């Protein structure tokens, strides 16, 4: 159980659930606040900037300044918006994101509720948010919001499939759909070693699922100017932002658990809960830094490219990973074959991505012309 305060009987289900809920919401709010600070600092360093420096040492109080500003802002609702849909949409995104923490084992003991199918639960619950996006897009009565909502729905549903297929490969290898069991399986070697192809697919699909660049199509600033968030302000807008960061944590945690081994030290060392928590956080941070890094360096994909990438590249390769795992398991080959086949698949994926982007003949380079031929060229046309 999460907390062990001695004076009250927290084994009562209702009371313990309430406590856990409270603790998680508080923890995640603070974690998210510092994720924004961290993101601003890291991205600023990648961009010749300093990031926040004025509020407290290293700008550490910046998240609170932001929070205060957002809380005192006027809560606007467009006159033509559908009131119920508009206001409920926030919760339809907010609640599923926090629900996921029910099945997150932070350490070997810190787990709110053991679920036998917690892996599927995590993926399924975090996939619910598209309903909220669609509601927000439709309820705002704004064309940009509608476009953003439609884009979000298409994207989240499409990328749910490769994500799920990638983790199903893990279920085949470990024989369990419980995140806890999957972590225990990785006490010697993390699963990323056995499933590099699945890991790459998971990594890509999870960036799309949390709608971060280069897959931030539903909220693309330069195209749909904020997408579904365009009509929201103040506390509602900050709840959207909070949720998108919480989702980022959920997928980073999921990735850390199922591919990097969560709180298990690679060589089977048994460590206390403090180290376990530290390991979880460190491994999660790797994912978070990756998300921030791609944000600062990649342009946004176009919606049609995004969809064709999911359906033509990621899903076939996720199926290939499952097929390869199936072969190894059915013919009872040694574990090394898992590694070999998966690396082969990953190489194939890399080659294909390379070939698809550079399809057709190579582009001719620019011509460099040293003498004035413009007049002749123009009169020839």
């Amino acid at each position: 159980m999460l907390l062990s305060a001695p004076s009250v009987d927290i084994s009562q289900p209702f009371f313990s659930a309430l406590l856990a809920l409270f603790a998680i919401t508080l923890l995640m709010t603070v974690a998210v606040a510092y994720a924004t600070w961290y993101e601003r600092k890291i991205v600023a360093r990648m961009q010749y900037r300093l990031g926040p420096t004025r509020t407290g040492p290293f700008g550490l109080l910046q998240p609170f300044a932001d929070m205060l500003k957002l809380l005192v802002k006027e809560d606007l609702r467009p006159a033509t918006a559908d009131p119920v849909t508009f206001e409920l949409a926030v919760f339809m995104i907010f609640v599923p994101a926090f629900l996921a923490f029910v099945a997150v084992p932070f350490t070997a003991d810190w787990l709110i509720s053991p679920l036998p199918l917690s892996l599927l639960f995590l993926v399924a619950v975090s996939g619910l948010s598209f309903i909220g996006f669609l509601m927000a897009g439709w309820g705002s009565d704004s064309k940009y919001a509608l476009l953003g909502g439609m884009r979000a729905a298409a994207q989240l549903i499409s990328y749910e499939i490769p994500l799920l297929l990638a983790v199903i490969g893990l279920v085949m290898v470990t024989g369990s759909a419980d995140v806890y069991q999957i972590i225990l399986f990785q006490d010697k070697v993390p699963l990323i070693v056995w499933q590099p192809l699945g890991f790459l697919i998971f990594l890509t699909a999870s960036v799309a699922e949390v709608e971060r660049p280069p897959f931030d199509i539903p909220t693309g600033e330069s195209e749909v100017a904020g997408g579904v968030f365009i009509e929201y302000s103040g506390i509602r807008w900050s709840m959207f932002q909070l949720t998108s960061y919480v989702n980022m944590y959920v997928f980073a945690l999921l990735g850390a658990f199922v591919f990097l081994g969560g709180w298990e030290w690679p060589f089977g060392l048994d460590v206390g809960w403090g180290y376990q928590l530290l390991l979880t956080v460190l491994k999660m941070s790797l994912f978070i830094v990756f998300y921030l890094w791609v944000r600062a360096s990649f342009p946004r994909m176009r919606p049609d490219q995004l969809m064709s990438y999911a359906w033509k590249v990621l899903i076939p390769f996720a199926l290939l990973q499952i097929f390869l795992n199936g072969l190894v398991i059915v013919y009872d080959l040694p574990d090394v074959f898992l590694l070999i086949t998966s690396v082969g698949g990953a190489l194939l994926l890399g080659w294909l991505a390379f070939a698809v982007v550079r399809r057709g003949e190579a582009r001719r380079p620019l011509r460099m012309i040293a003498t004035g031929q413009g007049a002749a060229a123009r009169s020839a046309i």
Partner: protein
Amino acid sequence: MVLEQHDPALEVIDMPINMGPQHPSTHGVFRMVLVVDGERIVDVVPHIGYMHRGGEKLMETMDYRQGIGYADRTEYLAQFSAELCYCMAVERLMDIEVPERAQYIRVILTELNRLSSHFMFMGAFGIDAGIFGTSFTYAFAQREYLQELFEEVSGDRLMYAYFRVGGLAWEVTDNFVERCHEVLKHTQQGIRDLDELMTRNEIFMARCQNIGAFSAEQAVAYGLSGPMLRASGVPWDLRKDEPYSIYNRLNFEIPVGNYGDVYDRYLVRLAEMKQSVSIVEQALGQLPPEGPIVPEKMPRRLRTPPGEVYARVESPRGEWGVYLVSKGGDKPYRLHMRSPSFCNLSALKAMTIGQFLADAVVILGSIDIVLCDVDR
């Protein structure tokens, strides 16, 4: 008998979307009404004129010296090009010979200004394509060095008004040449950084290649100029085809694209930046250390003989021209500015229809407009 039932509620109609004038990626106050079928653009109606303030008419009410400031305010990213063009027009009308040292300094500053303008393009274009500000900060860090130099020389960061009819306003700073070399070092690093960040980026390539392609025939028919025209494969550059000032004494090359798409426009600008660095280095080498910066016999009050003249320069965006009619006196009778932004923007509709909504942003970014120059 089959009755054709028509339910107006179920009719599929194309949705008009208003993009701008406050949209983040319309580069100022440009507005376009896009008619979209899902994400695909069916029609585009551009609206311009939000920044119109009658710059041409204002310049007709001022004497020739005062007009320089308005050239700045019109083309606020390539101010030196605009000033140079305006001064060239008046000089041609008055038949003034500009001293050599002034010519060199003008070319050096104009080319540095081309660099700063292209840096602006690179930064803004990266944002249009969806890079979260990295290209922008990379480009602006470099632009800052250039602007510091301009400030040292002219005393202003934006509205330089440093060129004068006949030469320059005042002598450059003593350490001008060293400062230029210092800035160029940063500039070269900046060009390399942007090149590494964007050029070979897979998503960037996928976003830009074969988007908004214009053939050479189309480009000429629409009156495009500058990098837009050269990306379409027409090697038209006034610095080569109609060498003004001292450009015929410098060795440089004109990058010309093959496909005319957004990616080629980006590549042409990147290659132009490298050429500009080399132009500035050559001009700094040839710069006469001493000499007058205005002609000896310069009239105190500028009065032009009656006549008309058209002067044009290759600005970072293309052919920037000033057409000037004088009926004598110290003010122009009629002044018209031929702005490349306006002519290039006219091709937006033809380039955008049939593309995706997300492409419209990239295409508009690739035109590299200065809205003030469009609306004047």
